[in-house]
């Protein structure tokens, strides 16, 4: 594999922070299956904004660093956000017969995440939202 051990350590540290915050939030602010999952929605939205911000800043503003993207992007934002829980929540809404809520959850999560990335990107570039 030849993976850089310090790069893996940066990803591990970031993932421990991001995954820890998400899991902690779901433990204290989790909602019953079939209801609007505020905890997942919040971390996914914040994580998308942060990833847009970090990636753009690391690629376009700061000097090249070896561990910025692994720590902040792959680790913190990747660990903070989750696709699998999002999909399980969606399935549970459908199983509870809440089709309208499921559609709303997809549309609002995707729109918020996408605009979050665009907003984080635009703030670094001091420009307008682009997509």
């Amino acid at each position, binding site marked *: 594999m030849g993976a850089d051990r310090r790069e893996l350590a940066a990803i591990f540290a970031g993932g421990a922070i991001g995954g820890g915050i998400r899991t902690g939030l779901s433990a204290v602010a989790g909602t019953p299956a079939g209801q609007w999952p505020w905890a997942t929605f919040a971390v996914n939205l914040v994580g998308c904004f942060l990833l847009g911000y970090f990636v753009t800043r690391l690629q376009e503003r700061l000097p090249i660093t070896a561990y910025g993207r692994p720590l902040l992007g792959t680790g913190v934002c990747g660990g903070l956000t989750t696709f699998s829980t999002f999909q399980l929540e969606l399935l549970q809404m459908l199983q509870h017969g809440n089709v309208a809520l499921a559609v709303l959850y997809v549309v609002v999560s*995707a729109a918020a995440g996408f605009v979050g990335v665009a907003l984080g990107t635009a703030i670094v570039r001091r420009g307008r939202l682009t997509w």
Partner: protein
Amino acid sequence: MVITVLLVAVCGGLGSISRFLVDGLVQSRRLGEFPLGTLVVNLTGSFLLGLLAGLHAPAHTMLILGTATVGSYTTFSTWMLETHRPAEDGEHGLARQNFAISLAAGLAAVALGRLIGGWL
């Protein structure tokens, strides 16, 4: 309590490292622009989380293996970033494909995992 917090952090770190390794493995073999690595990670993770749900894993197991480990293995933010960047470059077809395929296949994967977990 302290053990659980440590376990959650370690599992969050391991989930993220697994994502990085699987993504790298897929991306090193792929042809074309489609972000296949993230798709493979998100689909396998959705299947695993569905499996845990179908098995009716105890709450603590679900927290450690499901929310902390599999949750960190999959990523929503990279999915959105890899939808935003092609759209920004004018590749709206690729952006739409990445969005729609992940969404539909992810739901199928979690449903399949849940079904199989229920049989086991």
